């Protein structure tokens, strides 16, 4: 029989176990910790010191306070689906897992808001209110399992963010445990524009480096009266990208405007939710329009006209809800589907001005040739958010490094046209160095300055987000500030 109680002499583990109420709420044995050595970014791995499972804000605060007082590095973890390594315990952190804080605290339909705990799964929110015709807009493809706390940390986006905005546009209030264990509440009662600097905006997307979110007030929306979905097949990828540009510059705001290229189509058709897309087309567009039913058909006609102008091979409107759902399942499981055609894949996440789509897709093709690795593209074309998926085989020596280099070069191509290195997956460990593609040393130092206000000991999720020799930049800036006194 298994022996009860904590089987270690480590006083920290014992103390943490006491805070969370015993052995059922803490993992500390190596065999148990292995599952936590990485998140959705699997290239780096590191074992945490322990994983604790608090049940409420007070326990989170007590854990953080303990870590703060004993100089133990720590970090928060939701579902661990992050794609940039944000939840990887690089420094042997104590992982504070929020999966047991998963209550839907309240729903107020009249005032269109809901309050959730951070471990509440994204899709569950929509499922809890859909019977009354409401939903929560940000819809990352991982929404069936990722947590809203993790969404806040990463400022997650999704297919329908083109029209409705990303996570930050839907957060009204946060309760946060600061890195010293203090609990604060910003945006009391979810009332907008609380006087003072916009800390909600700053915390959202800070990748778990400024505080641990323990309660979230989100805005919920009423379902659109009608929606229609269009699938368009193009022989040439240039035509598809031109159609995207045309739709945007015509002044239309579709709910979603997604694109897949030939390699991606090969993947999704070989995986669990095939639609029967032709394999010989270079690209497809999945376009959704929603809103007042009286206005929808006009917009659909316009989209069909644009696609035809751009030599579409075939374009169709979903005839049933079932058909629409099938198209979306095919799209939303797109990343995983690459597993059907490649042993490993690396997801990248660059953003470009939408009019640069044809140019950048061409550059990505060249990068693919240069490294001899296939790159599939499945992405949010409407807001210029590319997801090049670099296909590789980690068992072949040197191929992982090649894939990383190819991914980085894709980001460089995005930065070169005035874009960004990440649109929704975050910097984490993965893109730390690439931050230099878009920010100067001084700009990076300015961000580190802000971190220092919240997280002066840098015990919370250290080593993420900023390029490694950040130290010398920090020193440089300090010196400069002293000089200016």
């Amino acid at each position: 029989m298994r022996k009860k109680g904590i089987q270690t002499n480590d006083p920290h583990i014992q103390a943490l176990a006491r805070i969370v109420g015993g052995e059922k709420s803490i993992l500390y044995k190596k065999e148990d910790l292995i599952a936590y050595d990485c998140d959705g970014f699997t290239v780096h791995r590191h074992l945490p010191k322990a994983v604790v499972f608090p049940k409420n804000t007070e326990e989170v605060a007590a854990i953080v306070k303990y870590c703060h007082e004993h100089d133990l590095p720590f970090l928060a973890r939701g579902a661990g689906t992050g794609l940039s390594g944000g939840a990887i315990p690089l420094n042997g952190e104590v992982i504070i897992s929020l999966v047991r804080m998963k209550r839907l605290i309240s729903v107020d339909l009249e005032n269109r808001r809901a309050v959730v705990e951070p471990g509440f799964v994204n899709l569950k929110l929509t499922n809890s209110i859909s019977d009354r015709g409401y939903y929560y807009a940000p819809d990352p493809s991982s929404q069936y399992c990722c947590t809203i706390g993790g969404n806040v940390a990463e400022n997650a986006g999704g297919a329908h963010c083109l029209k409705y905005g990303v996570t930050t546009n839907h957060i009204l209030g946060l309760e946060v445990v600061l890195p010293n264990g203090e609990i604060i509440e910003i945006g009391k009662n979810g009332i907008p524009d609380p006087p003072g600097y916009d800390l909600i905006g700053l915390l959202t997307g800070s990748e778990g480096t400024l505080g641990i979110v323990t309660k979230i007030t989100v805005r919920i929306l009423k379902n659109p009266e009608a929606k229609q979905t269009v699938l368009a097949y193009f022989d040439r990828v240039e035509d598809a990208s031109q159609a995207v540009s045309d739709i945007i510059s015509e002044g239309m705001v579709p709910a979603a405007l997604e694109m897949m290229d030939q390699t991606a189509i090969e993947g999704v058709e070989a995986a669990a939710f095939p639609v029967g897309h032709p394999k010989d087309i270079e690209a497809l567009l999945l376009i959704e329009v929603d809103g007042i039913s009286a206005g929808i058909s006009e917009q659909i006609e316009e989209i069909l006209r644009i696609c035809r102008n751009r030599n579409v091979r075939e374009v169709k409107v979903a005839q049933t809800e079932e058909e629409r759902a099938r198209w979306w399942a095919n799209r939303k499981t797109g990343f995983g589907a690459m597993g059907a055609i490649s042993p490993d894949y690396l997801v990248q996440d660059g953003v470009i001005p939408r009019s640069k789509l044809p140019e950048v897709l061409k550059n990505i093709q060249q990068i693919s040739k240069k490294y001899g690795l296939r790159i599939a593209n499945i992405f949010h074309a409407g807001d210029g958010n590319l997801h090049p998926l670099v296909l590789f085989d980690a068992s072949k020596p040197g191929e992982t490094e090649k894939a990383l280099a190819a991914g980085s070069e894709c980001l460089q191509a995005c930065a070169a046209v005035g874009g960004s290195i990440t649109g929704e997956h975050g910097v984490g460990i993965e893109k730390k160095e690439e931050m230099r593609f878009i920010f100067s040393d001084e700009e990076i130092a300015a961000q580190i300055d802000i971190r220092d206000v919240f997280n002066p000991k840098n015990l919370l999720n250290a080593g993420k987000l900023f390029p490694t020799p950040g130290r010398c930049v920090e020193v440089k800036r300090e010196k400069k500030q002293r000089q200016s006194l």
Partner: protein
Amino acid sequence: MLSLEWKDELTAILSEKQVQIEEHGSHPLGNSGHVTVYPQSEEEISNILRYANTHGKRVCIVGGGTKRGFGGQLECADILLSLANYSGIVEHAAADMTVTVKSGTVFQQLQDYLAEYRQKVALDPVWPQYATIGGVISANDSGPKRLGYGSARDSVIGLRIVYPDGTVIRSGGKVVKNVAGYDMNKLFIGAMGTLGVISEITLKLRPLPKYESLVLLSFPSGNLEEVRSFAVQFLDSMMEPVCFELLSPSLSERLIGQRAYTLAIGFEDVESAVHYQEEFVKRLQPPNTTIRILPQEEAKSFWQTFYTIGPNGAAPDPLGQEIEAAVKIGVVNLDVLHIVRESDLLQESCHVHIEAHGGLGHGLCQVYIKGESESVATAIERLRTAASGLGGYAVVKHLPFSLRKRIDVWGENPSYFFLLDGIKRKIDPNRILNNQRFIGGI
């Protein structure tokens, strides 16, 4: 006071005509300076700030000055940095639906330019003919259409900021989706110029609506329960109003000549969708109410008037006969009903004239008060009590300087004030920028 030497030093940075010595150096709304400087480039802004930072001079920033009466405990800073001559469009990527603009550009001029491309910045601040885009963003101004289009934090995608030490820092970028590093844009939106001078602003744009109309639904009975039950029913429908704003009877009288609580419900979409939604309102229309529909140009002209109902800090004689105050109140959406009613009742009990409006879909109210100084002060206190009783806040957006010393325009500090102050100290350790303009004396 002001030595000539001072001016010489500044003219070493700028040309003679960009530096103006102020004779009086004070303004009834405060927030003025002994010297006004008019930089024309980012480099000049940077040089001025570097000069001020090393010489311990206090700088007050002004865009259009419509918000001169918004916050501030200093009657006169050393340098008034005006962005009036720092304007123009830097880059308009029409096909990408983004624009980069210098911060001193007048809001309306930007909109007029974009209108030629059938595009717009989706913000509706007051006094668009005077307000600069930099001021709108720094004051985080939004109007009723925030319901449909969001506020500055939803439109701004990139900034160039001149830090107090003269360094130029970029935040965000030129793309509509971006999570690289901290979302630093958010820090400067609504910061009232206490962290840096915003030099350039990149905004995402929206298409101009193909058609618009405004439905005005008046409730002459004065029974707010009727308004509430209509609002709840309407907001639970799938209609997509861009605004759902309750006007107080006094404001309604001024705008449409009908002294009654009135809901202003705006629709912007393709024409068929707009008419469909108008019909929907008619079907839901409660008994004893009156309805008026302003199509297209009529709606536009309503809004033009609407955006000039409040006091304007840039007007030639901003004090007029009576004291004027503007209060922004935030409460949970439907509690706007209570605030608008309270405003109406205060008119009699405090002997003031009050016009108020608030969005039942977003929870923000604007209350404009006119009257004798003491009465205005009492009305503000009562409104603040009402707001905090509902778990909300009240910020006094406009008040003559003399009263600002007595009434804390920002209200109580939040429990996390040390974070706000910590940010200020990191970025502006010498507190040269808009000192004491912001919450808690930041």
